[in-house]
């Protein structure tokens, strides 16, 4: 079974500070880590490989320093790392990013499953995973918390929903995004870390993947960020006091008012 794990390098959110003037992240001096949700994706990919054989390829789109994320993925059991990096990708929103990654995935000859974390801790959009599946025109299952069965043809998974969970079966190849309930990521081995240090990574630029330049980077990103702000803390609620009869009628009145 060949598995592709899509990962993203993000600032360590436990250390992140927001510039109060510009409302953007202060990235200086903040360590970069693999997006925490992607750690579960890597672990699940490596577990599938350990069970079924095959290969796990980690892929990331980002600046050259994102190489560190790929090396960490290799230390955790991935076999290869592909860095998709080009100035032409700068300014990509989730549409352009998922398009670029999908085109890179197409270049990898065969794969059975693509695994992504449910969302990245910096943007929190949860759009890139589903976007890749859409660009590749393959089935997708989001918020997977358990892979119940897998064989060469299909995969049966349990996905989290707001109400509970659903069990779905999808033909392969498909894309899944995973939640933290799915596993407990391992600690790397020393041999894995040493292998990762020496590993030769593949680097693809825009010209290496068969893509439409108009759909890359800023050009390919319809998202317009109008304003970024820190939301005000939630205001204190109002507590109605009195006997239930009275407070219920008052509540109904208030709800009616708020609709109008």
């Amino acid at each position: 079974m060949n598995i592709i794990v899509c990962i993203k390098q993000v600032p360590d959110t436990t250390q992140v500070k927001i510039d109060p003037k510009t409302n953007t992240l202060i990235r200086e001096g903040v360590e970069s880590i693999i997006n925490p949700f992607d750690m579960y994706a890597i672990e699940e990919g490596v577990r599938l490989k350990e069970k079924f054989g095959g290969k796990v390829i980690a892929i990331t789109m980002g600046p050259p320093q994102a190489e560190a994320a790929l090396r960490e993925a290799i230390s955790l059991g991935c076999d290869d790392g592909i860095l998709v990096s080009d100035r032409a990708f700068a300014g990509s929103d989730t549409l352009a990013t998922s398009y670029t990654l999908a085109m890179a995935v197409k270049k990898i000859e065969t794969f059975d499953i693509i695994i992504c974390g449910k969302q990245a801790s910096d943007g929190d959009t949860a759009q890139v995973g589903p976007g890749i599946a859409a660009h590749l025109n393959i089935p997708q299952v989001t918020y997977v918390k358990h892979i119940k069965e897998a064989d060469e043809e299909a995969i049966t998974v349990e996905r989290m929903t707001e109400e509970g969970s659903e069990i779905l079966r999808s033909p392969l190849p498909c894309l899944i995004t995973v939640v933290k309930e799915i596993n407990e990521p391992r600690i790397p081995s020393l041999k894995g870390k040493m292998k990762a240090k020496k590993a030769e990574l593949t680097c693809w630029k825009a010209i290496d993947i068969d893509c439409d330049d108009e759909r890359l980077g800023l050009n390919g990103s319809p998202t317009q960020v109008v304003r970024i702000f820190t939301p005000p803390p939630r205001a204190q609620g109002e507590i109605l006091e009195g006997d239930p009869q009275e407070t219920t009628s008052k509540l109904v009145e208030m709800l009616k008012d708020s609709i109008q």
Partner: protein
Amino acid sequence: MINYLLTEEQEMIRDLCRQITDEKIRPVAAELDKTEEFPWEIMKVMAKSDLFGLYIDEKYGGMGGGILELSIATEEFSKGCGGIAICYAASALGTLPILILGSEEQKQKYIPDLAAGKHLAAFGITEPAAGSDASAMQTTAVKKGDKYILNGTKHFITNGGEAEIYTVVAMTDKSKGSRGASIFIVEKGTPGFTFGKKEDKLGIRASATNELNFVDCEIPAENLLGKEGQGFIGAMRVFDKSRPGIGAQAVGIAQGALDHAIRYARERKQFGKSISSFQGIQFMLADMATQVEAARALVYASAREVDSGVTKNYGMHSAMSKLYASDVAMKVTTDAVQIFGGYGYMKEYPVEKYMRDAKITQIYEGTNQIQRSIIALGLIKEAAGS
């Protein structure tokens, strides 16, 4: 910390052990101290991360490092919990006799599983009446055909009951005194080999300390390590190599307590200021940090000397590293409790455990009084030009 110019690989070991300490050891340290439950889960993580083979040759499945690598790992684990760290380090102590005295066949048979962490090892020398005076040992091994029959009791054995492989010192010829001792490999489950009581200890409570009982325990003659009569000299060679590891445990315990003390001193407010702004506290922290760094430097230097294979008389230096680091650990952990004040005395706060864990480092693998004897003897020998 001083830059000790470690290799990239040694830094990698430190990072990995730090990650295990932060993610796996610290969250359970207080709980295991209370329950005395053996940390098997953590041993498995260390095994999967290739850490049991750090000091073992690659041809037996190890990572090809030495005592310095083992010390770096032990130090990092000890920052989180000296008890869990010693479960790891004691397996190395039990393995060293095989590496030092073992034949190629014995190494091929036992070392790969120990290097992989599939099995833990333990070393059995101490007896109820034979502590510092190991020559008072009562356990005997009598040769009978192609077997040795073991009889006697070992106690205070770290990893006792949990380890699979035991290297045990027994008298093969009592008439020869200390030259009549030999070391044997005994596997758990051998008929006649049972475990006695598990000790209830002041510190390092996550580790298992147990009695080993041998009653007409038959082991194959090929389980003898080296030759008959090499037991004491073999044990001394084992301790010469293992002592920096205890020094490293002590450095880790001391550093762990110091880190807590610095953090607390910055947070704790009295007289309207953080107590770290008071010179009385500052001077304590400065002394603690200086002592820990000196201990670490001595431990690393002696571990490097052991690994270099250049000098023969490294035993007195490894004794110095164990002696100094353990005394520092006791002092620094006591001072850390002092900085925490009343809170430091309470089990709800982490530092009293470091103080309890530190005490054993002054006692085991040779009391600090025995270390001083080894050092003095080394000095006198050197002066005599022998």
